């Protein structure tokens, strides 16, 4: 019974196993990226950059159809261009980074919609917008695993300047020039993970596997290490749970994964010990000291 519900779908169907591997690879790197996005107050930047990837992927599609390579390169190029331009413009002009980011992603989104509308079928459009986690081939899986590995390695290297740039950027500037490098590298990692997420979940939901587990984790701990662990576990549990729900109930897999993460989030909003509703609204007796 339990076996049928939890194990059998993965044991019997190769596409479910592939989806599971792909989704877990995404969760492993997406969750820590999401935690840093949230702590850097860039939760919506991830969303903006996800939109910015669309025209690049669309141009790739225009030249080569639904090709993994072309759409990956196109998406990466567009995402990195927007990230770097936004960073450079905010450092060289009076505009703040959020404003430049908004301007650039709207421009690239308009461009993407124009390109997709000019040429392309509705089915392809659905693929681009919502991904195809149940149809990941070998190449796609290798790409996701590679991006996940690169991200985790790079985060380990950048961890110290990334943390310090959030906490005390003024101090980091006096001891090191690593701040801008760390920031731009981090944006690069965000784009990489969005492109990975884009293949599995589509441009619209790619950012979900980063931000929803991160926001969930914040409600469970006020320590950055614990947050990263909780976010990663939430991401993995959502992948497994979402795929199972999609298998048994017949929901599309990508949205089911994000919905599962959403359920964790809503539950944490209520019972989360580090700032959930119960912990803030129901006062417990104060301590002696």
């Amino acid at each position, binding site marked *: 019974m339990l076996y049928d519900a939890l194990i059998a779908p993965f044991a019997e169907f190769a596409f479910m196993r592939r989806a599971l591997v792909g989704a877990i690879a995404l969760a492993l790197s997406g969750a820590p990226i999401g935690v840093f996005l949230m702590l850097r107050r860039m939760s919506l930047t991830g969303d903006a950059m996800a939109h910015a990837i669309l025209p690049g992927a669309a141009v790739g599609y225009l030249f080569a159809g639904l090709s993994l390579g072309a759409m990956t390169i196109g998406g990466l190029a567009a995402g990195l261009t927007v990230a770097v331009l936004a960073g450079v413009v905010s450092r060289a002009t009076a505009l703040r980074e959020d404003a430049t980011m908004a301007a650039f992603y709207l421009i690239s989104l308009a461009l993407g919609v124009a390109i997709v509308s000019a040429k392309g079928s509705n089915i392809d459009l659905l693929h681009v917008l919502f991904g195809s986690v149940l149809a990941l081939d070998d190449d796609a899986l290798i790409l996701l695993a590679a991006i996940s590995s690169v991200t985790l390695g790079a985060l380990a290297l950048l961890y*110290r300047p990334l943390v310090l740039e959030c*906490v*005390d950027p003024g101090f980091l500037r*006096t001891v090191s020039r690593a701040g801008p490098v760390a920031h731009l590298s981090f944006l690069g990692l965000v784009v990489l993970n969005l492109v990975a997420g884009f293949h599995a979940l589509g441009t619209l939901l790619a950012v979900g596997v980063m931000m929803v587990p991160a926001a969930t984790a914040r409600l469970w701990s006020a320590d950055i290490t614990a947050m990263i662990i909780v976010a990663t576990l939430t991401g993995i549990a959502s992948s497994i749970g979402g795929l199972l729900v999609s298998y048994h109930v017949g929901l599309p897999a990508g949205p089911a994964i994000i919905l599962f993460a959403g359920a964790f989030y809503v539950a944490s909003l209520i019972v989360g010990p580090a700032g959930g509703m119960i912990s803030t609204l129901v006062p417990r007796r104060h301590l002696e000291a």
Partner: protein
Amino acid sequence: MSSPAIRFENLTLGYGRHPAVHHLRGDVERGSLTAVVGPNGAGKSTLLKGIAGSLKPLGGRILVDAGAEGVAWLPQAADVDRSFPLPVYDLISMGLWSRRGMFGGIRRADRARIDEAIAAVGLTGFENRPIGTLSGGQMQRCLFARLLLQDSRVILLDEPFTAIDESTAADLLGLVRRWHAEERTIIAVLHDLDLVQRAFPDTLLIAREPVGWGGTDDVLTPENLEKARAMIEAYDRHAHRCDRTAA
């Protein structure tokens, strides 16, 4: 006399084209303990920013000889994002950056030094507390512990005793005296003139332009203070280009 720790050569610092520090020249001797005083908007923080190298001069230059550790700079505490979920221990240990850099691990000897710094500011027992739970005074102790670990020859303090209670201020002043005894060069922006007279041998009084610089008792005269107040009220939106080359 050895070469100075800091030399200002006709230095002008500012924002846009408006000077906040105007035509400052002079030397800060090695091992000196200098208070920078002046009205609000006199350019005191700007001067520290310039020495720390995070603001480019509009004119002239600053020569800083701080050795391998570089300048340690404590800006006004508001620059720290205290909502970030970081334990006290981790924030303090960042003071070792100049020695351990981006990747270097914290060694056994480092741990002893970190513990010692935490004890020196009286925060033993707070190591694992998130920085968001600290009071203003505790946060300032935390930042002083980080300064201790930085081990710099030149230390800049921007209003280090503002908004903290007397016992905290006394403890932190003790650290400043310890640094002075170790012949480090210290420059502190301060508003409490009694404190300056009590504890700081040298004073730079500025009001955009230097008003007086030298022994504290010679500088902090009623005439000088009145002069500084009058000078700062004369900010002119339509100021002309400054063609002065020598003060």
